[in-house]
């Protein structure tokens, strides 16, 4: 699979995740999201940026449980719950947000 962004072809795996994490740009995130009829707003970007920082620091994508807890701590308790995260990423915050963030699928996420 491949994604066309700004005339460039970006390689994706069979589930739509980036083949090369270093390919990622914000434009790619926007393109991946619009392919799933999602328009990224500030609240999506908060989560995407958090995921990228987490990956940069720990070299893994966090499990949903960890993501939920960390979002609550960083962005406030009203956002640290799966209802809020699913409202942004209805296909599952781990899978969908990690995809837009250009990360691999979270370990243990089936």
């Amino acid at each position, binding site marked *: 699979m491949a994604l066309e962004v700004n005339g460039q072809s970006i390689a994706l795996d069979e589930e739509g995740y980036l083949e090369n994490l270093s390919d990622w740009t914000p434009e790619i995130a926007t393109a991946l999201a619009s392919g799933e009829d999602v328009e990224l707003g500030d609240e999506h970007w908060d989560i995407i940026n958090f995921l990228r920082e987490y990956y940069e*620091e*720990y*070299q*893994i994508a966090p*499990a949903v449980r960890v993501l939920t807890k960390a979002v609550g701590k960083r962005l406030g308790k009203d956002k640290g719950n799966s209802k809020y995260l699913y409202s942004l990423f209805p296909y599952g915050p781990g899978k969908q947000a990690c995809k837009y963030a250009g990360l691999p699928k979270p370990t*243990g996420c089936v």
Partner: protein
Amino acid sequence: MSKKFMYVNRKAPYGTVYALESLEVVLIAAAFEQDVSLAFIDDGVYQIAKGQDTKGIGMKGFSATYNALGDYDVNKFYVERESLEERGLTEDDLMPIVYEDENDDWAEKPSVKIVSRAEMAQVLSEQDVTLSF
């Protein structure tokens, strides 16, 4: 009821797949909310040693991931003192791995506990399930 799971790590982090496999199993199993401990024995102590750099072997480094385990409620890292001494290492050569204690206003606490060989045997004997890598 949760069981006590122990992951025993005896091999150096890079060069074989054991350390990474162990780490991935720990991350996956953490979702099941069991009581998880890790043991670092023999060359396994190098898994949490500072300054690992995989650039030269073209392999992804995963040393930083040990620091994420606190987020997964994995915060009992038992390191055998004799294994450190036999390799000329001290606690200062290990990464300062910490976790945030949810019940203590997110205070950062050390995850690493240096134990003697006899204490390690005691810890191992208290487990329900032991997985060796």
